[in-house]
């Protein structure tokens, strides 16, 4: 282990601690006020005040339900759905004489459905509970009776002192008191919190760092006052009162729950936040729940069905009322056998309106089979299973990061098949986010040979044969893979230039500047060196890959950073072949932030010189350079532009010598800013740092390459072939963005670019005037004009096949997103096949997403990897997180997580397409089968004077949705494939079926419903007409109520299951098993049910064995009806595949005709032979005709 060297060092002055020196006179900002009212008495459990506070225990529960509220709460969740409420009401009413069937037969399917959903909820919750139990029972050492003894996490209380050992997780949010290092520092891994794998350094106060052994805590008492529990991981406001000293706390002293102690023996800490008050728990929110478009449309269909239900009940009750009224005719009763003179309100001819109304209620129950009770639960089950398939897909598993794809929500599976626009982040999403130092410009001289992928693409575009393609490209790919062709490749370093490598820099004209340049790289960073004990190799833990690449570059060029203490940074510097150790005293560090876009350190070198070393983005650095004599400014700018064109990330390197007095004055101010405990501390620190980061002297610029991820260009090309529009939202400069666009096939040769920018001379002229309103006005006008021009360009070439790309920068975007320009911007943008938004902020990303989503009303998918993409991911219809290097925040906010951008291709084109198709077909079929069944009841009613007598036995009906027809449709939803995954990818255009929603458009849905209606009519009227009077058996028996029910029901079961078999074209054994099994089960049920006692089986008593089975008529009717019900759909399909085939029909045809080589094992040989033979014969036969 590499920490031995820390052990003996007792730092008297710690640079970062100096920032937080106790300052008792300081006003403690808002402590004690609202939001900052927490008081923690450390190691003082008996204190009555502490007792009164009653902070939450450390018991954590992430479950949705508890044992007590599970039943009521989950039931409540269930009955929030309209359909379920309907069924519940029906179940209640079924106990009254209104009910056409027995209450139990209505309750049973409802219970099954509700039970299945509750079981699913329960299992999910149980898993969470098990995790909770595990977490709550982890062991921790708590100070009690003068020693640290083992205890469970859940028993921990606020104010307890704990001892955490190496590689243990912190059980709660702790205040770091001391560590096994005398200086009270410790290293923490926060992977569980933010996914960052680098180690973070935490410091204890000097005053507490001396508490070095268990016994020293005997008299330890302290009071912490701090902010109330909140979810902000990156700030902490509080103060520590210890030994009459007031110390202000920052995040530097706080160890967050679920992060891990690394590289240390142990630490001591005091518990501040427990359980649900901890930052990590406060952050644990569910991803926003999104609903897919298909489900929204499904709700509409349910409403249609409800209105159908109501209207047919209404029609029925009118007829019933009229007929009942006729039973009383001028004082004489018509249908005497119903005894209308002594009847109940239900059938009273004296009060026909009331009877009709009551019958209406009966009808609502009777025709309830139109509403598929099991639809929701089936869809939920199907989606969970679909997600499992997504999670299990080997082709979406990334070996290097050991991450499979993960569907974090199963709600949106089918939405994946309908994506119209992808909005993508660039860094870390399209690129690897592993930086390689490739070029630099020092003192106006550009160093670094070799070409990037972007440059190659650029060269290709300009039709210039790159000079040294052979070497460079292999270099690049070689270094990426870890094996170079020129000796050992170093990760993060791909720099080749013999002029400055291997110490040759000393012979360059500006060798002093080169030396300074690399010193800045070696010193100005926050990386921590780490020596591998066995190999002696040095590696770095850095906060960002950019930073690591700089330190590595410095090392490779002879400025090896090897040690960091709290006050110094030490380098091995090679000077003319001799290694010299130089140590730099570290005085201050002004950290990097996305707002500042730069970082600086202030060091004192061995010659007692004070130096400010600074690196930062060109946009902020150039304005901070000293006004006089910057000899290389122009060349450097020039180089930076070139690097940007080559798709590289650039940073400007500068320094400034400080004089002692200025520094002393500044330090005071800076300290004051740093130690102020208030919300505007950051602003104060910024203001202070502004004062010293000025008059810099330019040294040069670095260029690091963020490599494109593997397979990105191919993936983007495929997606564009699938007709998916791609928007890239990046923080890069326009040139970089365009070049990256070319490199990743987003922009292609021959595409016309519409560029919207505010970088025009007239705008900059106005900007010089510094009049905000004028700038805004001019910008708006300019953008409007540019949009108009773009529009006319698009209109001019509408007929031709020229593709357009829109490129817009962040500043223009601000104006383009304003209300009055938004629509014209969107109009231009959606006519372009790709759109690039450069220099866009996280907020803009989310706004653009929102605009696209709401403007086009089509499905948008956002993909990103960083915290800055979270807004975009949540705004889009689907958020896909890349679980890459930048932490887990994007993943936590996403609906699907994949490891690499290229997996998006498979996720959309294969899984998305399949899921879309499955769900769409499944829902259509569901409506078909329920309408087909429900309407037979209605037709029967029409022949039973609408009295409300169901055509079938109660239990046949209640099993309909639960057993006889449920499993095949689930199999369809889980397993169906129109074409194999390989063909999905080969014919990306197939994806358009989902985008255009042609499998779930209204004609198709209504078509299926009509088919259901047709089936019900065919079933009922054929059965009715063939059994109306005469005997159906040789022994003279006629068809009665019981037998007609069985005949019709048999026909229904056969018809709907065969319809399923006809409409899918993918049969594994599972489909065969479920479809034919369901039919078979009906007979099994009928036999078993028929053998129950007559009280139980009522009208089903032995009806199959005794009456139906021996009759050839029964079997032939089934046969006749099934063939007739399938005929309309079969005819439709036959004509459709002939005259208006859908794309998948076409692909299937090609596959079967052998235009596609069949995958081995795709078709069992025997079947294939047979089919070939048959089709051959058919061809011959009609050729001869």
């Amino acid at each position: 282990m590499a920490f031995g060297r820390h052990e003996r060092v007792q730092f008297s002055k710690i640079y970062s601690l100096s920032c937080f020196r106790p300052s008792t006179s300081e006003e403690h900002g808002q402590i004690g006020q609202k939001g900052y009212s927490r008081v923690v008495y450390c190691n003082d459990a008996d204190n009555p005040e502490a007792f009164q506070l009653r902070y939450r225990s450390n018991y954590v529960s992430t479950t949705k339900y508890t044992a007590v509220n599970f039943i009521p709460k989950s039931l409540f969740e269930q009955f929030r759905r309209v359909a379920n409420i309907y069924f519940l009401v029906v179940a209640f009413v079924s106990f009254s004489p209104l009910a056409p069937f027995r209450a139990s037969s209505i309750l049973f399917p409802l219970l099954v459905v509700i039970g299945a959903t509750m079981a699913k909820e329960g299992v999910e919750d149980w898993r969470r509970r098990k995790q909770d139990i595990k977490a709550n029972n982890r062991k921790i050492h708590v100070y009690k009776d003068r020693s640290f003894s083992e205890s469970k996490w859940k028993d921990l209380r606020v104010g307890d002192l704990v001892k955490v050992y190496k590689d243990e997780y912190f059980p709660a949010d702790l205040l770091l008191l001391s560590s096994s290092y005398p200086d009270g520092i410790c290293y923490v891994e926060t992977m569980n919190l933010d996914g960052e794998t680098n180690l973070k350094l935490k410091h204890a106060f000097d005053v507490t760092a001396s508490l070095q052994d268990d016994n020293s805590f005997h008299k330890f008492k302290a009071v912490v006052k701090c902010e109330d529990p909140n979810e902000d991981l990156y700030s902490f406001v509080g103060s520590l009162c210890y030994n009459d000293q007031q110390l202000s706390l920052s995040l530097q002293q706080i160890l967050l729950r679920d992060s891990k102690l690394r590289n240390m023996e142990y630490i001591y800490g005091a518990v501040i936040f427990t359980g649900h008050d901890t930052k990590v728990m406060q952050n644990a929110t569910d991803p926003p729940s999104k609903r897919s478009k298909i489900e929204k449309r499904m709700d509409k269909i349910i409403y249609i069905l409800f209105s159908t239900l109501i209207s047919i009940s209404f029609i029925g009750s009118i007829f019933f009322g009229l007929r009942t009224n006729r039973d009383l005719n001028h004082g004489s009763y018509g249908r005497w056998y119903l005894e209308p003179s002594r009847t109940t309100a239900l059938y009273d001819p004296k009060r026909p309106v009331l009877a009709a109304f009551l019958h209406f209620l009966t009808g609502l129950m009777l025709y309830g089979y139109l509403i598929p009770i099991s639809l929701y639960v089936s869809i939920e089950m199907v989606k969970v299973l679909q997600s499992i398939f997504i999670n299990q897909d080997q082709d979406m598993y990334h070996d290097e990061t050991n991450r499979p794809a993960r569907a974090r929500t199963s709600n949106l599976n089918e939405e994946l098949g309908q994506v119209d626009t992808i909005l993508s982040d660039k860094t870390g999403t399209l690129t690897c986010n592993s930086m390689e130092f490739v070029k630099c410009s020092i003192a106006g001289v550009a160093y670094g040979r070799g070409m990037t992928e972007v440059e190659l693409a650029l060269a290709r575009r300009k039709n210039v044969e790159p000079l040294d393609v052979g070497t460079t490209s292999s270099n690049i790919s070689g270094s990426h893979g870890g094996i170079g062709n020129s000796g050992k490749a170093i990760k993060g370093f791909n720099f080749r230039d013999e002029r400055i490598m291997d110490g040759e820099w000393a012979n360059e004209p500006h060798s002093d500047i080169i030396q300074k340049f690399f010193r800045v790289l070696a010193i100005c960073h926050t990386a921590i060196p780490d020596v591998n004990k066995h190999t002696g190799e040095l590696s770095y833990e850095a906060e960002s890959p950019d930073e690591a690449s700089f330190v590595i570059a410095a090392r490779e060029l002879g400025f090896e950073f090897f040690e960091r203490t709290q006050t110094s940074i030490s380098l091995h510097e090679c000077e003319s072949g001799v290694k010299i150790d130089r140590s730099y005293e570290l005085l201050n560090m002004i950290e990097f932030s996305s707002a500042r876009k730069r970082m600086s350190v202030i060091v004192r070198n061995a010659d007692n010189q004070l130096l400010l070393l600074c690196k930062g983005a060109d946009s902020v650095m150039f304005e901070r350079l000293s006004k006089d004599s910057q000899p290389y400014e122009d060349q450097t700018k020039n180089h930076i532009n070139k690097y940007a064109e080559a798709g590289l990330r650039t940073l400007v390197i500068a320094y400034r010598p400080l004089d002692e007095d200025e520094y002393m004055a500044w330090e005071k101010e800076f300290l004051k800013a740093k130690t102020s405990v208030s919300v505007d501390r950051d602003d104060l620190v910024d203001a202070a740092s502004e004062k010293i980061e000025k008059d810099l002297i330019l040294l040069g610029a670095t260029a690091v390459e963020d490599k494109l991820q593997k397979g990105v260009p191919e993936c983007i090309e495929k997606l564009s072939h699938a007709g998916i529009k791609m928007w890239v939202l990046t923080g890069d400069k326009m040139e970089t963005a365009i070049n990256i666009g070319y490199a990743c096939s987003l922009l292609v040769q021959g595409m016309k670019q519409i560029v919207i920018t505010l970088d025009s001379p007239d705008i900059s002229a106005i900007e010089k005037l510094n009049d905000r309103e004028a700038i805004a006005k001019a910008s708006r006008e300019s953008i409007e004009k540019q949009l108009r021009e773009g529009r006319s360009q698009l209109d001019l070439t509408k007929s031709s096949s020229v593709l357009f790309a829109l490129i817009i920068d962040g500043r223009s975007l601000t104006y383009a997103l304003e209300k009055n320009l938004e629509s014209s911007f969107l109009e231009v943008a959606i006519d372009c096949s790709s759109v690039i938004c450069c220099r866009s902020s996280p907020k803009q990303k989310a706004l653009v997403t929102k605009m696209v989503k709401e403007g086009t009303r089509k499905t948008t998918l956002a993909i990103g990897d960083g915290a800055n993409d979270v807004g975009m991911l949540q705004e889009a219809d689907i958020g896909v997180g890349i679980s890459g290097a930048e932490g887990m925040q994007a993943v936590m906010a996403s609906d699907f997580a994949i490891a690499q951008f290229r997996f998006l291709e498979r996720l959309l084109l294969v899984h998305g397409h399949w899921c879309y198709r499955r769900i769409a077909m499944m829902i259509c079929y569901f409506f078909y089968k329920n309408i087909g069944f429900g309407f037979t009841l209605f037709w029967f009613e029409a022949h039973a004077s609408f009295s409300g007598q169901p055509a079938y036995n109660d239990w046949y009906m209640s099993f309909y949705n639960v057993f006889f027809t449920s499993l095949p449709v689930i199999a369809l939803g889980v397993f169906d494939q129109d074409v194999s995954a390989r063909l999905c990818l080969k014919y990306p255009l197939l994806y358009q079926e989902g985008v255009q929603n042609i499998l779930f458009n209204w004609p198709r849905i209504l078509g299926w419903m009509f088919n259901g209606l047709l089936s019900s009519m065919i079933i009922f009227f054929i059965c009715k007409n063939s059994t109306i009077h005469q005997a159906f058996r040789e022994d003279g028996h006629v068809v009665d109520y019981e037998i007609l029910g069985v005949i019709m029901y048999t026909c229904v079961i056969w018809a709907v299951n065969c319809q399923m078999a006809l409409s899918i074209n993918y049969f594994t054994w599972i489909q065969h098993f479920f479809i034919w099994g369901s039919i078979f089960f009906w007979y099994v049920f009928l036999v078993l049910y028929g053998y129950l006692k007559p009280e139980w089986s009522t009208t089903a008593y032995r009806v199959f064995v005794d009456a139906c089975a021996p009759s050839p008529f029964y079997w032939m009717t089934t046969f006749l009806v099934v063939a007739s019900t399938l005929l309309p759909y079969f005819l439709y399909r036959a004509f459709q595949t002939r005259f208006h085939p859908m794309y998948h029909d076409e692909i299937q045809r090609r596959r079967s005709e052998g235009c596609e080589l069949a995958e081995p094992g795709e078709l069992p040989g025997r079947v294939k032979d047979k089919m070939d033979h048959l089709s051959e014969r058919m061809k011959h036969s009609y050729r001869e005709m």
Partner: protein
Amino acid sequence: MDALPRPKLKSKKPKYSRFTQQELPAWKPILTPGWVIASFVAVAILFIPAGLLCLSASERVVEIIDRYDDECLPDSYSNKGDSFIQSKDTNKTCVRTMKVPKKMTAPVFIYYQLDNFYQNHRRYVKSRSDKQLRDPGFADETRDCKPEDNLHGDENEPIIPCGLVAWSLFNDTYILSKGNKVLDINKKDIAWKSDTEIKFGSDVYPKNFQKGELIGGGELDETKPLSEQEDLIVWMRTAALPNFRKLYGKINSDLEANETITIVIQNNYNTYEFGGEKRIVLSTMSWIGGKNDFFGIAFLTIGGICLFMAINFILLYVCKPRPLGDPSYLSWNRNPSGQ
């Protein structure tokens, strides 16, 4: 960059199986022209002979139907059928003759046919007590039978069999004779075996039946157990549709062609009040049951449609074979971005 020695992570690589990778062997039939035509031809080949078979069976069945409800109404009571039938004094005997068109081989089944009689009305269907019919111990199980549950509302006097179905028992009787010879009508085994053996108890006797203030249909012999009262059993198997036949009995002798059958009908059952019709039907049987032309015709129609479609499709592919892989058929191929 991963400098710290980490415990080797367990690979999260999904395990391979054909199931999880969705690569199960599957049969993927598609609607090629061959399959379409083959299916049509196959259905036609099956259905047309089946239809012919059914039709010929139906042809062989000899069926005589005679509607007698209006014919048996004396002229003086025309349009006043209900008062005729309700009156105790009118002569309900009615003589009808029918000619046998073709030879009817035994057994000849005698049915009565009622039309516009809603035996499937919910109130009617529910008004019975299966428990009471089966088991003498459940004699007072008459909850569902209202208003024909107890005699004069006295709970100790349950009506057996209770309910509207039994109460409205059909009670016309037929005596058939050929020349002077009365034909023996066998009324045994006209009900389903399961009904006589199980559903109707052999130790359940009618009680208080048709003793109430309203008299419905026929009466029952109180000395015979229900299981032997096959007319009741047949009647209580409610019909599915408002037009139905029920078995009255069987004649176990042949009826020769052109013989005249005389039927003496006791026209007791009131269909006049609700505008129903009554018929007597004599029929022989075939393997599909009674005379059933619809069935055969339906088969022939479906078979015919399929044959027609098969021919159409064959012609279609011969005259206008689809160019192989012609993409112009695809609706969106004309604009690839799908707008």
